[in-house]
């Protein structure tokens, strides 16, 4: 019996598209030159990098000198936040205020928290509403006289909810044009309009491996003239903002992957969204005591995040994995830190509800047949685990009432 494998974890990472890989391959051992070298090997590499910069700039409707290649979204986010605060202190002394949300990716959240702890900034963390969407008014009300920076993700990586970036962009600029607006668009690039002018953002982070490109490469869009400082010392690569030898094959892959979205976005979106809605409806109908986390409408076309009561997510993942279905969970037990998902807690879920969450993220090659099989396996696994857990949760609450 050949075992089926159904990959429903595209928000974690995507496979490299074969066409993308093919374009990358010559830059590993054939055209291996350092893009900073002046000889023709180096210049060939440089041309490939600049072509990719054009492809990325085109996608974001940006200029060439506004695209900085990095090692991925984590680095882009670190550079955006730390770089802006560092540049601020070159001119000012007063402690600046930064606004972000409670359900950002760890690379934003931890960066802001650390800078707050180091007494470099004052920070406000805005909670999303119950549907997983940030209210424009909440951001507006948090703005103070010393606010210099707002950082907010475009699409949440766990629950897939879409944030009103362009509304917030407009509001911020109307309020105080000096405030710098950053969005982590890592989960959005595949599915949503990332025209930086329309979004009204000054900085935008992204990663190649979420869009069928390679791992270890990403980009930061930084508006021309923006006051930002480098955070890593070394060579003068990337307009002096990102020291380190240029990752030519990775960057070529990023350019290739992003240029493919341009042609296919609308078509893929519709197809994936149809499957997503089918998957959500099927789970909620066939599996009792299941619930969708986050807004059903303001949602990425590829994201399903459901909750099963009386089931723990890690054991559910293990069981699904044994049947060839690969997914993800917000359960503490699956995380290295053993703390439950900060995203689901931010939505107001109880800890045991966060433990019972399952994230299924579709890709461009997901089929209806795969969805049908996955639901069958999920249903069977949930039933089995509920049998094992019996009434233990109910009994816990009965005992604690006594």
């Amino acid at each position: 019996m050949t075992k089926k494998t159904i990959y429903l974890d595209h928000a974690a990472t995507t496979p490299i598209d074969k066409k993308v890989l093919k374009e990358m391959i010559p830059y590993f051992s054939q055209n291996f030159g350092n893009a900073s070298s002046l000889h023709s090997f180096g210049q060939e590499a440089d041309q490939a990098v600049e072509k990719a910069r054009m492809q990325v700039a085109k996608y974001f409707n940006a200029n060439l000198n506004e695209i900085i290649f990095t090692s991925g979204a984590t680095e882009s986010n670190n550079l955006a936040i730390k770089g802006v605060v560092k540049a601020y202190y070159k001119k000012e002394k007063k402690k600046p205020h930064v606004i972000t949300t409670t359900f950002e990716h760890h690379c934003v959240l931890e960066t802001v928290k650390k800078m707050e702890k180091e007494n470099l900034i004052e920070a406000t963390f805005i909670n999303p509403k119950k549907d997983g969407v940030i209210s424009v008014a909440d951001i507006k009300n948090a703005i103070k006289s010393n606010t210099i920076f707002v950082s907010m993700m475009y699409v949440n990586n766990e629950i897939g909810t879409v944030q009103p970036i362009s509304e917030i962009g407009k509001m911020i600029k109307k309020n105080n044009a000096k405030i710098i607006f950053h969005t982590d668009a890592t989960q959005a690039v595949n599915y949503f309009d990332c025209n930086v002018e329309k979004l009204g953002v000054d900085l935008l982070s992204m990663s190649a491996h979420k869009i069928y490109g390679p791992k270890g490469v990403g980009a930061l869009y930084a508006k021309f003239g923006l006051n930002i400082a480098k955070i890593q010392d070394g060579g003068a690569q990337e307009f002096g903002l990102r020291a380190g030898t240029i990752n030519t094959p990775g960057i070529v892959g990023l350019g290739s992957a992003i240029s493919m979205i341009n042609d296919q976005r609308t078509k893929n979106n519709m197809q994936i969204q149809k499957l997503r809605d089918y998957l959500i409806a099927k789970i909620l109908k066939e599996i009792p005591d299941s619930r969708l986390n986050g807004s059903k409408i303001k949602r990425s076309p590829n994201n399903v995040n459901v909750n099963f009561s009386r089931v723990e997510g890690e054991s559910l993942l293990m069981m699904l994995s044994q049947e060839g279905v690969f997914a993800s969970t917000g359960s503490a037990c699956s995380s290295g830190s053993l703390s439950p998902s900060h995203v689901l807690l931010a939505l107001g879920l109880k800890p045991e509800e966060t433990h019972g969450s399952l994230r299924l993220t579709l890709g461009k090659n997901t089929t209806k047949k795969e969805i049908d099989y996955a639901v069958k396996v999920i249903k069977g696994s949930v039933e089995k685990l509920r049998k094992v857990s019996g009434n233990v949760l109910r009994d816990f609450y009965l005992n604690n009432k006594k």
Partner: protein
Amino acid sequence: MYSKKVLEHFTRPHNQGVIKNPSGVGMVGNPTCGDMMKIYIKVKKDSKKREVINDIKFETLGCASAIATSSMITDLAKNKTLEEALKITRNDVAEALEGLPPIKMHCSNLAADSLREAIKDYREKNKK
């Protein structure tokens, strides 16, 4: 990351379920940490009048290692005297499972505690 033995016990747990009219019940864990287990024991006296765990069952809400440790402790404690059962440690359970991932040693390895609670419950009920 899990041993073969853990996966075996997770996939096909032994002694899973409830004992009606148990001699003792032990429950440990809480919803915040994510792992909760409940152990039921039936205690009988053997021919030498020693108190023996005649039957043992569990219900567990938790990760794969929480389920596997629950299953393993029921195997280890069945037909043991209470004194013998009380000597079973978290380490014994982990060893019998051919090891647990380091991060799971504490949080998901509650089965020995749960068994001790069940024995304590039985002894309190039978105090004269």
